[in-house]
């Protein structure tokens, strides 16, 4: 995966200069969409021919829901604490603080 990360980093710095050409950016955005469509189509195929996945779709779905719940609950709670301690004094809602 190092290759991929290096390619992305090169892209970021290249993009800084290419950003001045708006038409080129539109092409890049289009190509990204096509690449994503292609890759997810390919992922779909490998899932479709994989009997273990197809037979366990209900379990896979449940795992996905559980992970989403953990991820959202965790980050909402941490940012709630952050908001209460550092951010709410900035705005008018700070009254319940002090």
């Amino acid at each position, binding site marked *: 995966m190092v*290759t991929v990360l290096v390619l992305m980093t090169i892209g970021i710095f290249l993009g800084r200069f290419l950003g001045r050409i708006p038409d080129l950016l539109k092409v890049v955005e289009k190509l990204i*969409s096509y690449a994503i*469509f*292609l890759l997810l189509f390919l992922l779909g195929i*490998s899932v479709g021919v994989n009997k273990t996945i197809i037979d366990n779709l209900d379990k896979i779905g449940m795992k996905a829901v559980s992970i989403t719940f953990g991820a959202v609950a965790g*980050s909402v709670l941490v*940012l*709630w604490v952050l908001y209460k301690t550092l951010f709410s004094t900035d705005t008018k809602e700070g009254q319940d603080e002090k």
Partner: protein
Amino acid sequence: MKNSLIILAFFSIGVLAGVFNFLPGFIVQNDYSMYALYALMFLVGISIGADKNSWKVIKQMNVKILLVPVGVVVGTLGGTALTGLILSDLSIKESMAVGAGFGYYSLSSIFITQIHGETLGVIALLSNILREIFTLLATPLLVVYFGKLAGIASGGATSMDTTMPVIVKYSGKEWGVIAIFSGVVLTIIVPFLVSFILEIL
């Protein structure tokens, strides 16, 4: 939202094609996806680098604002680690890797498929799409009970684009900058964090 539907459609057509064996053998046997992933990541890099917001983000950086994406990372990884601990048929590492997609479902699912296999890739696709959909639907309520950062927390990487309108609408315009900042930072670290969790941890 429209984009998630198109992507799900491509994925579903692929699944059906695979299940009913519509495809010529060479597509199934040869794996072209690694090359497509190389191209995708290079292009994603260019679009991040060319986005003025990405570089503005560095100028806006201060400790307080930086704590927002850091908090999302800590909360997400903590919550998903707990999920992995509770579910017997899912390892903590797998659960955290899926969580580290932060709602960036297209990239994280493809990435996780390459590193760890299709099953976890599909879980990543579903789980992260769900994160985006949940944020779109629940932000109005989350903001009431958990403060103005709740939409940004729930949105993760999507708070810079797809879920930003909802966040700005229910938290207020002044939170838009923080939403973009957090979203940009999380978007950039997705591939790094996912590979770190699955390959090094």
